[in-house]
């Protein structure tokens, strides 16, 4: 029971707002080393970089579509019961989601090989990840009940949630194949700290007119919640050793998995670049500390039924207990410790970028600099870019997409700015802004999303941030 309470609290308080993040501003922001994390095949020109541990890359987002904090908690004089009923219980649909992501780099380093066309990077990061869809029929059942709703089927399949806390160890290689093509790959080892998922549910609760009695109640359920890691954390909580347990599970002491990122950048011509990446093609096997709960079966009940003629010799039996036993036999609640496999939420990015501009502090006859990586085939780094970006992610219900248009401006080697407009299921007015500052070897970046919502942040359906601090060296330094 404690375990279930822990899972519920974890889901509601922490992870309901966490899920894999669209990093459309960071993507193809070549000046920032962390752009390698969203496309291992990005055109990088660093000699080496070293992310300041724990603050080299911190990012997160909250996404809630269908309702906002302001819709429910605004001091508007309306009764919260009316607001919840109108805007959530009756206003939201099962496709609405509560999702988010928090990612913190523990270590991130990169260095160029003796072959100047090859760049290695590696490190580790911690990632919370969750998505919970609005369980509409559960909410309507909890708020209104099933009374006076003859023939209404409450869909138990509305429950879909998935979340995890993992440490990811990664090693990547980025290779400039020629002047036009750069490819990259990143291998990942996942060390799962905790996981829960309940995504393949089905069934219904239904009241119909009874054959004998007034009502016939049918419960048909195929529900399953799979968890991992919560047992050890429960025990650790009682023993006061939560930190040790978290660290142990983060250092390969929990569930293990493998993953792969792939990406490339291809120059269609001198000023046009097409890029794409696929991230987290991977899985985790949960086997060490799993606890699974299931409820499966179908039962019909018209209450206690006594046909005196048929049961004349057996009228003293305990009809109530027999009814309870019969239902429990037809729909058994089971707990198992079977291992299970989960697949990581795979992301796909693609972008088309056009570089342009006039010379600015450059000896070249353009607004550009040459590639400082030391490669034999230098390429131009233009100071203006404009383009589009597509993001896809697989979700328990379906794939979700976001499309972005961006403009980027580089001010010498000191500063680069990127502005974006993104449309997705959370917002059609998502204006984002990224700032990259370079002071000698010190690199700092800050990125924020959905800036228009800052006029009333409580009314926003989406907010995200990314920031980090790195030490960078270029090839010609």
């Amino acid at each position: 029971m404690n375990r279930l309470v822990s899972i519920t609290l974890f889901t509601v308080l922490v992870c309901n707002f966490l899920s894999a993040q669209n990093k459309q501003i960071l993507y193809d922001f070549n000046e920032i080393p962390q752009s390698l994390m969203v496309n291992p095949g990005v055109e990088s020109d660093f000699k080496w970089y070293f992310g300041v541990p724990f603050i080299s890359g911190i990012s997160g987002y909250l996404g809630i579509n269908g309702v906002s904090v302001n819709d429910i908690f605004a001091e508007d004089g309306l009764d919260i019961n009316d607001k919840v009923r109108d805007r959530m219980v009756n206003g939201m649909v099962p496709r609405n989601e509560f999702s988010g992501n928090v990612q913190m780099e523990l270590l991130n380093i990169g260095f160029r090989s003796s072959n100047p066309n090859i760049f290695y990077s590696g490190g580790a990061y911690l990632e919370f990840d969750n998505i919970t869809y609005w369980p509409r029929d559960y909410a309507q059942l909890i708020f209104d009940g099933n009374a006076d709703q003859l023939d209404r089927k409450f869909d138990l399949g509305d429950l879909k949630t998935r979340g995890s806390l993992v440490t990811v160890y990664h090693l990547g290689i980025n290779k400039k194949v020629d002047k036009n093509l750069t490819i990259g790959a990143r291998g990942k080892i996942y060390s799962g700290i905790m996981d829960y998922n309940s995504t393949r549910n089905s069934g219904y609760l239904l009241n119909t007119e009874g054959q004998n009695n007034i009502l016939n109640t049918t419960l048909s359920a195929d529900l399953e919640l799979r968890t991992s890691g919560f047992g050890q954390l429960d025990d650790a909580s009682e023993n006061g050793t939560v930190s040790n347990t978290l660290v142990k599970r983060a250092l390969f002491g929990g569930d293990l998995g493998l993953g792969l990122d792939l990406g490339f950048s291809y120059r269609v011509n001198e000023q046009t670049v097409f890029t794409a990446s696929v991230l987290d093609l991977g899985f985790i096997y949960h086997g060490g500390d799993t606890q699974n709960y299931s409820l499966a079966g179908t039962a019909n009940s018209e209450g206690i039924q006594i046909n005196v003629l048929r049961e004349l010799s057996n009228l003293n039996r305990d009809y109530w207990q027999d009814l309870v036993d019969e239902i429990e036999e037809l729909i058994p609640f089971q707990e198992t410790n079977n291992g299970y496999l989960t697949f990581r939420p795979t992301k796909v990015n693609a972008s088309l970028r056009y570089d342009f501009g006039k010379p600015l502090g450059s000896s070249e006859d353009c607004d550009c600099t040459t590639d400082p990586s030391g490669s034999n085939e230098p390429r131009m780094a233009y100071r203006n870019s404009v383009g589009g970006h597509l993001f896809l992610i697989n979700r328990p219900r379906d794939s979700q997409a976001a499309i972005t248009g961006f403009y980027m401006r580089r001010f010498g080697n000191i500063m680069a700015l990127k502005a974006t407009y993104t449309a997705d299921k959370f917002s059609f007015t998502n204006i984002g802004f990224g700032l990259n500052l370079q002071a000698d070897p010190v690199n700092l970046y800050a990125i924020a999303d959905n800036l228009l919502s800052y006029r009333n942040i409580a009314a926003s359906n989406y907010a995200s941030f990314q920031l980090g601090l790195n030490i960078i060296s270029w090839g010609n330094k």
Partner: protein
Amino acid sequence: MLLLRNAVFLCIAVTFLLSCSDKQDFSQYDDLTITPTLETSIFYIKTQESIINRVTGLSFFSQDFNFDAFEEDLFAERVLEGSITYELENTTSKEIEITIEFLDANGDVLDSEFFRMEAAPTALLTRVVAYGGINKSLDILRNTSQIRLSAVNLGDNTSTSSLPDPAVVLRSSAKFMVRVK
């Protein structure tokens, strides 16, 4: 380094200065009430006329049944109000009386419902008994551990109704509002 630090502080300051929010009152959560009304059948009893004819004397049926549904914590601690609906159908040739008594764990009667129905053909007798508020006390249900059903035949023991499958049928369902929050 100083430039960077100042730039970061500037960005953060600008973000916070530009961001704002309508006033929120999270204490409203305390006022949120969740009180669903749940409905299901509770018991059904059918006594055929052939059984009634076999029993001499007025009382042809009396039986105590264990019934813990109302004692379950989920119900007893959360119920706010509700009702029990009874439907009585008599297709026999006899006038009958039905008494339903709610008993506590000691067998003491907490409450009772009395029904009388003429011989067939009669209309379906429907009665809704409300509990909570100004109606009957919910404590009757909270303390109910058994239900006693008694039936009395006010007619003869020989006649048989011409209706198909003549019997006395008692149907019931419960509809109660419970407090989730």
